[in-house]
């Protein structure tokens, strides 16, 4: 295998020719998540004939269309259900789901909950831009309190979903949240998520200058991207400050969104347990038959 060193070579391998450039707006964070995923796939050296992508509906859900690999662009919120089907049909495939906060935490919430609970082998990459970008900016269930959306013109009064926290509570094997502006940790984290058997969630906080930033007066693209640096904190730093910091330091970080790896465990995945179950029943059946002879 030729070792890929530059972005140009990477793009030649992974991008679906003719689809690029994207339909995404100027300054949208989705493309960055795609690039991080490419590097993770390349570094792992996965056979792309064994990787299948699935997505629902939304700007984020268009990502598989740009990848030179098999993919299913399904109905809104249902990508995880389709992906479960792919995995059931052939557990040898790596299944990666690109989904948005609306797609995954909103309309697809129940699919997400149960896939995480059942620990289905898949990697869910949820791009959280706090908004329904594609349809023009309706309020997403992940939007911070006070956010302005077309359906929340006076500011959001609903408490946001912390989807990473939820996935941890459901016992998902791997859960991490990252931003898009610092490349190395997220790439490493996607690799870990892909290698993990069972359910992994990678949540990305991504700027949507058009539907979220503009409406919430977060300034131009530069300022909007900077918002994520100013309002996030690494979980390790957060915990240290909360334990040893002064009151002033604690007050400074207490409302920041935490980034990092939140859960990294190894419970048996659904299909692992299922295989064992089938083996056990087969054995029982053969024993019963032998008994009759």
């Amino acid at each position: 295998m030729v070792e890929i060193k530059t972005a140009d070579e990477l793009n030649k391998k992974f991008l679906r020719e003719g689809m690029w450039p994207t339909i995404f707006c100027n300054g949208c964070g989705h493309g960055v998540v795609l690039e991080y995923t490419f590097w993770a796939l390349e570094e792992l050296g996965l056979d792309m004939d064994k990787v299948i992508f699935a997505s629902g509906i939304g700007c984020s859900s268009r990502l598989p269309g740009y990848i030179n690999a098999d993919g299913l662009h399904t109905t809104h919120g249902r990508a995880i259900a389709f992906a479960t089907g792919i995995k059931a049909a052939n557990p040898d495939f790596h299944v990666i789901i690109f989904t948005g906060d609306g797609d995954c935490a909103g309309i697809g919430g129940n699919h997400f909950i149960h896939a995480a609970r059942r620990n289905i082998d898949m990697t869910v990459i949820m791009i959280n831009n706090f908004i329904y970008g594609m349809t023009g900016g309706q309020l997403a269930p992940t939007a911070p309190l006070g956010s302005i959306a077309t359906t929340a013109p006076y500011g959001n009064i609903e408490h946001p979903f912390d989807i990473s926290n939820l996935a941890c509570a459901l016992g998902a094997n791997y859960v991490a949240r990252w931003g898009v502006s610092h490349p190395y940790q997220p790439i490493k984290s996607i690799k870990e998520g892909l290698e993990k058997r069972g359910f992994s969630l990678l949540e990305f906080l991504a700027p949507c200058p058009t539907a979220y930033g503009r409406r919430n007066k977060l300034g131009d693209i530069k300022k909007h991207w900077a918002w994520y640096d100013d309002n996030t904190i690494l979980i390790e730093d957060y915990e240290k400050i909360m334990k040893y910091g002064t009151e002033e330091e604690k007050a400074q970080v207490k409302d920041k969104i935490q980034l990092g790896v939140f859960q990294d465990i190894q419970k048996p995945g659904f299909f692992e347990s299922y295989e064992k179950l089938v083996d056990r029943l087969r054995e029982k059946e053969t024993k019963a038959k032998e008994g009759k002879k």
Partner: protein
Amino acid sequence: MIEVKDDWCKGCNICIDRCPVDALEESDNLNRRGVRPPKLKEENECNYCRLCELICPDLAITVIPEEDDKKPVKKTLLTPVGGKLK
């Protein structure tokens, strides 16, 4: 060397803004979207850290290190800084 696919660039200027050594600027040519893709400044301290390549949302940049031209790597913007109190 920095290669930019002019027609892929949408002009967000994130690369210019985030370069840790301020090595990039808008070029003089307009692409077909009417934006000015980035280029290296005439005088620059680019150390091929590849941050611009990795965070370009439109995958328009490729960084090709010049082997014989070693410069000190400044990694300030490569790790999340949100937690560090300013």
